[in-house]
């Protein structure tokens, strides 16, 4: 038997050698494809071919609602760009890469995206779940990215191709604390998911709450894959908080709210969420779990100030409405929630900035158009303010310098390409419509900042 085994092994060894050669060949082929893909970033898009924007975000896993939200924005924005004539004769299209909200899955997903996608000019998405892992990869590929991450490490780490129009997470923690102050709460429970994106809120929230003279009475870390949070909910209920600050996406928050309501004699404890809670998927889940009225009556969230009227808002909403019901995974809830969803608004602005920059540069070569992102976003002396891609194209064709101000408001990029906005307080109606219930001033944020 042993001899047979050895003989068999020798055959297997030979076969395995063949497989190894095949595997090495496959890796070499993949590397070649990746190199071919990367050539588009440095050389511009050949005439007659489409420019591609990629939505790199979770489409599955606990944060699966984020990817489709960004895709609504991508499909809507590119449709509006194409309707206005495209970019330098090129149509623009969207593609996706599912990171599953996990760095381990995100790296191969982005690797595959870069290898297979020709003419990739822009990446959007890259949430806090995966940004730290994928941003260096995308950056080394010399592809501009507009990321939806508030991770503080990007406040002081420079990536040439990294841009964001959202504030660092610690600023959101301060904003949530100010909301608690405004509502007169004294005792706060923290309930944040155990994912990277949610945990970054905790320490700044603790220090801000202390500085504001309030008390953290419970601090529960929620495993986003956990089956229930009953014990965590019971600890929160027993701590008798005035409000709960939370971000635990997927079904976690909805489950927690449901269990708290059950353990608290049918009463929902007031909830203060992050801007990520402003999405149709979040409202649908939470409202289904505790009842729409109960949820709407007890929920506040910080959100960046975005336009709710005016030409920029009109152009933005028209773009998104053009793809209503057509985007996979985004057919649930009140569609108008996307008009205030941070991802939809700010990525729309990022894509328009990129497209206008290419036209201003007269090139799809990233080395040539990237410098225009800040000049068109922040404006230069004598620039004409435009509120949509079509308007920007018209002014550029007229030989004017432009400043793009979209529904997310004017940008002000720092040396790290961060352009944090200012905050407002959002609530929901029982029908899931987002309403603005207040504002948060810079002075209020400074007062609680660590």
């Amino acid at each position: 038997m042993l001899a047979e085994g050895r003989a068999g092994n020798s055959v297997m060894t030979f076969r395995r050698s063949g497989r190894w050669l095949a595997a090495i060949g496959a890796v070499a082929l993949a590397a070649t494809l990746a190199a071919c893909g990367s050539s588009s970033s440095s050389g511009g898009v050949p005439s007659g071919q489409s420019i591609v924007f990629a939505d790199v975000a979770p489409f599955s896993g606990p944060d699966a609602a984020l990817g489709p939200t960004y895709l609504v924005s991508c499909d809507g924005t590119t449709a509006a760009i194409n309707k206005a004539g495209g970019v330098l004769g090129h149509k623009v299209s969207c593609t996706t890469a599912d990171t599953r909200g996990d760095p381990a899955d995100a790296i191969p997903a982005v690797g595959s995206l870069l290898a297979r996608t020709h003419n990739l000019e822009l990446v959007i998405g890259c949430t806090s779940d995966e940004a730290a892992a994928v941003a260096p990869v995308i950056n080394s590929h010399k592809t501009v990215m507009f990321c939806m991450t508030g991770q503080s490490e990007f406040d002081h780490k420079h990536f040439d191709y990294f841009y964001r129009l959202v504030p660092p997470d610690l600023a959101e923690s301060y904003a949530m604390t100010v909301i608690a102050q405004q509502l007169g709460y004294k005792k706060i429970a923290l309930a944040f998911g155990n994912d990277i994106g949610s945990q970054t809120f905790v320490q700044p929230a603790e220090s801000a709450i202390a500085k504001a003279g309030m008390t953290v009475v419970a601090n529960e870390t929620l495993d986003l894959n956990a089956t229930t949070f009953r014990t965590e909910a019971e600890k929160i209920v027993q701590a008798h908080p005035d409000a709960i600050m939370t971000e635990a996406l997927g079904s976690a928050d909805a489950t927690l709210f449901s269990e708290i309501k059950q353990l608290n004699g049918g009463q929902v404890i007031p909830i203060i969420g992050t801007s990520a809670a402003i999405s149709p998927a979040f409202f649908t889940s939470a409202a289904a779990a505790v009842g729409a009225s109960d949820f709407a009556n007890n929920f506040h969230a910080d959100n960046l100030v975005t336009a709710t009227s005016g030409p920029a808002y009109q152009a933005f909403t028209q773009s998104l409405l053009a793809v209503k019901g057509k985007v996979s995974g985004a057919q649930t809830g009140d569609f108008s929630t996307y008009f205030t969803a941070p991802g939809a608004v700010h990525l729309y602005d990022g894509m328009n900035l990129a497209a206008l920059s290419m036209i201003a540069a007269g090139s799809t070569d990233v080395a040539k158009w990237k410098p225009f992102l800040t000049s068109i976003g922040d404006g230069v002396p004598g620039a004409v303010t435009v509120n949509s891609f079509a308007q920007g194209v018209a002014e550029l064709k007229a030989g004017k310098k432009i400043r793009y101000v979209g529904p997310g408001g004017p940008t002000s990029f720092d040396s790290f390409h961060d352009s944090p906005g200012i905050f407002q307080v959002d609530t929901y109606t029982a029908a899931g419509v987002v309403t603005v219930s207040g504002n948060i001033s810079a002075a209020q944020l400074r007062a609680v900042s660590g």
Partner: protein
Amino acid sequence: MTIFLASVGFGLLTAAVLAIAAVGFTLQFAVTNVLNLAFAAIMTAGAFTAYGINQLGVSVWVGLPVAMVACAALSVALNLLVYAPFQRRGSAPITIVIVSLGMALIIEFGTQAVVGGISVSYKMSQGHTYKLGGLVLTTVQLAIIAISVVVMVAAYLTLRYTKLGKSMRATSANRQLARNCGIRTGRVITTTWALTGALGGLAGTVYAIDIGSFGPTSTDLFVVLILAAVFLGGPGHAYGAMLGALLIGVATEVSAAYIVPSYKYVIAFVVLLAMLAVRPTGLLGART
């Protein structure tokens, strides 16, 4: 003390749901020789089947048996179309495990493609809340515990006293010998897939009722808990799975009360590893 009692109560509830799934999983493994990692995905399919019925304005308690039937059919189809062909070709057990992992992803993503990436809830009342000392349970949660007890008793009686149960045990112990003794093992195996699939549908629906809000990926971690309960009790042992579920359920909730809650499953698995270090074949497995 109050939080301790509360967590024990919650642990019993977790154990009740886990026990149904673990018994189904271990029976399936014992009789069919397939370590079916797609079991939790079938639970998800069951939960969403009941959800679909519930969305039509029908009580989820009516949707529950429909989910059981649907999952029984899905489970049988999974065996006939996927696992059985691999087994006929003499695929190694580890190959079947990988195939089942692939099927889990296919079912999970297929469900997500249909329902989207959002979380949903059944339209139902939790009923009255009962408090006894630190224990806090609703009518629905007590009903879930009762269902679990009924399933456990039914499993015991079936395996112990019925012809089917004896055939299942014989097939599990030695399929060739069982066939030589006149047992139609093929039919027993198909029946086992149907029964355990129905248990999967039941487990998925009560799990979804229990957690309040669920999505296509909600059972991702639950399958690990099922495996833990099964291996803690001794793989292939239905009664061991019940005991394993009880220990895992209570350990996770009690540890959540006293340590960082996100580590509650870590503690449960430390318990599992410690137990297996002492008894490698599980609590009710044969002594080595």
